[in-house]
């Protein structure tokens, strides 16, 4: 598949204190041809990302995190919410406060369906919120978020030719994704959008576009 070569450029950092869940997420992501790094805590995640205490006051990009180097560049962070010490929410907050990390999309996972928790995370700038355990169909929802940052400089929002090729053969995925995407959009309506980096960047919110749900990065 032509997508395979491009897929390997997408690097996901997965954060979860559960070994089993790290293994699961890693396998799910690798099945979709993403590069994966897993860490077991928020602090290790920040370390990996090259975060510095004074990042928020410093508008210069820190030289410790060489974002131009493919192997260190992270295109998406997916994190568990409930973790000892630093929660997923705390990690999200720290990343959004950091000048060098705020543009990395963050997705939160949780085993508990708590609406206030979900809203809180989305308001803080999380791209999406998945209920655990994660499924293959959830991984398909990650691509749009990663592409937002990847192609930000070129101001390319979507790749129409890719969408036509990538037709989902899982009808229930599309159905389920539509439901989730719509409810997330509903929650976002009326919220302060300052922290929604996609809107800040002039990119339209991708959530209500069902065709993204058809994107699959699985290679058979």
């Amino acid at each position, binding site marked *: 598949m032509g997508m395979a070569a491009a897929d390997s450029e997408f690097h996901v950092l997965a954060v979860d204190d*559960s*070994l*089993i*869940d790290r*293994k*699961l997420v890693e*396998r*799910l992501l690798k*099945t979709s041809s993403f590069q994966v790094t897993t860490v077991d805590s928020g602090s290790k995640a920040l370390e990996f990302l090259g975060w510095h205490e004074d990042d928020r006051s410093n508008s210069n990009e820190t030289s410790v995190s060489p974002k131009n180097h493919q192997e260190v560049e992270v295109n998406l962070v997916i994190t568990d919410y*409930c973790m000892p010490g630093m929660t997923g929410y705390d990690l999200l907050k720290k990343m959004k406060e950091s000048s060098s990390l705020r543009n990395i999309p963050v997705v939160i996972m949780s*085993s508990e369906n708590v609406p206030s928790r979900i809203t809180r995370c989305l308001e803080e700038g999380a791209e999406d919120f998945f209920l*655990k*355990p994660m*499924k*293959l169909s959830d991984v398909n929802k990650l691509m749009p978020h990663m592409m937002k940052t990847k192609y930000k400089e070129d101001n390319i929002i979507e790749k129409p030719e890719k969408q036509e090729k990538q037709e989902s053969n899982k009808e229930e995925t599309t159905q389920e994704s539509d439901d989730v995407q719509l409810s997330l959009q509903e929650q976002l309506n009326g919220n302060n959008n300052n922290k929604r980096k996609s809107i800040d960047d002039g990119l339209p919110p991708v959530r209500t576009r069902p065709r993204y749900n058809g994107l699959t990065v699985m290679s058979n």
Partner: protein
Amino acid sequence: MEVDQLQRSFLEYTNSLFREGFLDGQFGQLQLLQDESNPEFVFEVVSLFFEDSERILNDLTLALDQQNVDFKKIDAHVHQFKGSSSSIGAQRVRNACIAFRNFCEGQNVEACRRCLQQVKQEYLLVKTKLEALLRLEQQILAAGGVIPMLDS
């Protein structure tokens, strides 16, 4: 034993586990993640689950044996167990954990001990069944067959 006989046994056994609620759809997801490049994936995850579970059960037993029971700690352990059982599709264990957490809120030591027994029992049941299932898988592979896809 012949391959198709083994495969039939495997399917029948798996379906019975789904029917009886020992496993749910998540286990099917695990099977989907197993392929030629990761032929041992289910085995690895299930093994991790066994190790993890035994550690948690020990911690829970210890915690409930204390003079002053720390219910917050117990709740944290049970939450963890609920998560891991949910991740592999061990539905009955997960449900037992949910019930356990409700009793934690009540802070009743005796009730919690009963819950622990319940969770232990469900865990041992699913452990036996998963071990049998994995053995069947190994027999199929040894006989040169492929593991049939679950249709749940």
